[in-house]
């Protein structure tokens, strides 16, 4: 069990990713927020929150993209840019791999059902729709393809 004071500082890094998930969050930057070394940070964060920091960031970006698709009329290119992707292609592919739908398909579907959630604070609606990314995206792609490739040695966010 980690020291609660360290956990509180790790939470601060998680909060910073939550507040600005469109920004770049290399481990060095996160480690600085938590006041620990980068190696210690990556290990402790995964132990505390169950996922590596870069994968947590990815789930937040997908969550935010989902909210923008649902709540705004921003073009999908803008949604990709706003949520931190540098290319529309990577955004679309990653979004589909994580959620099982293209951004445009998801936009149409969630808008139909959005009215029922009006009484729940927006952040909790968003959190309830956060993708449950328990495996790396590259692994998810491989499993869905029914692939027999050797697991990648490096995770591709």
């Amino acid at each position, binding site marked *: 069990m980690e020291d609660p004071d360290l*956990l*509180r500082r*790790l939470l601060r890094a998680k909060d910073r990713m939550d507040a600005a998930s469109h920004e770049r969050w290399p481990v060095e930057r996160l480690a600085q927020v938590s006041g620990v070394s980068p190696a210690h940070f990556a290990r402790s964060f995964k132990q505390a929150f169950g996922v590596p920091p870069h994968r947590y960031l990815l789930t937040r970006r997908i969550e935010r993209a989902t909210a923008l698709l649902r709540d705004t009329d921003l073009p999908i290119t803008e949604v990709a840019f706003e949520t931190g992707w540098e290319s529309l292609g990577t955004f679309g592919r990653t979004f589909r791999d994580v959620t099982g739908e293209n951004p445009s398909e998801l936009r149409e579907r969630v808008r139909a059902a959005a009215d029922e959630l009006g009484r729940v604070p927006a952040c909790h609606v968003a959190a309830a729709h956060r993708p449950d990314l328990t495996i790396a995206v590259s692994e998810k792609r491989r499993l869905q393809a029914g692939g027999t490739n050797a697991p990648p040695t490096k995770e591709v966010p």
Partner: protein
Amino acid sequence: MTQGVQVVGLYVRDQDEALAFYVDKLGFRVHTDVRNGDYRWLTVQHPEQPSFQLGLFLPGPPVLDAATAQSVRAIVAKGAMPPLVLLVDDCRAAFARLHERGVEFTQEPVERFGSVDAGFRDPSGNGWKMIEARR
């Protein structure tokens, strides 16, 4: 009103620190602060909500054994306790005032769904949403 919810408790890592935060920074008032040996029953109240008390409790003996208390402290520090909502008249003004006092905000005021909301944490890690009342 004679029936209803009277006290809801939070777990905090340090009751003096929590008291300073909720009273000096958020503007709550102390309702009850009594000790029995190491145990301290501490509740605070919002100045506009006299029928409700927020308990600031330390996880530990005699209520919890040491191992359980350690787990609870970790859960609080990871921000995993359930959400809390503070209703305010003017979210941006409250943000400016509390930010000035050193409250750790996790989200600046954002306008959405016809209201404005912000987010902050207490020193222990309990997370609050601060939502502007719809007029």
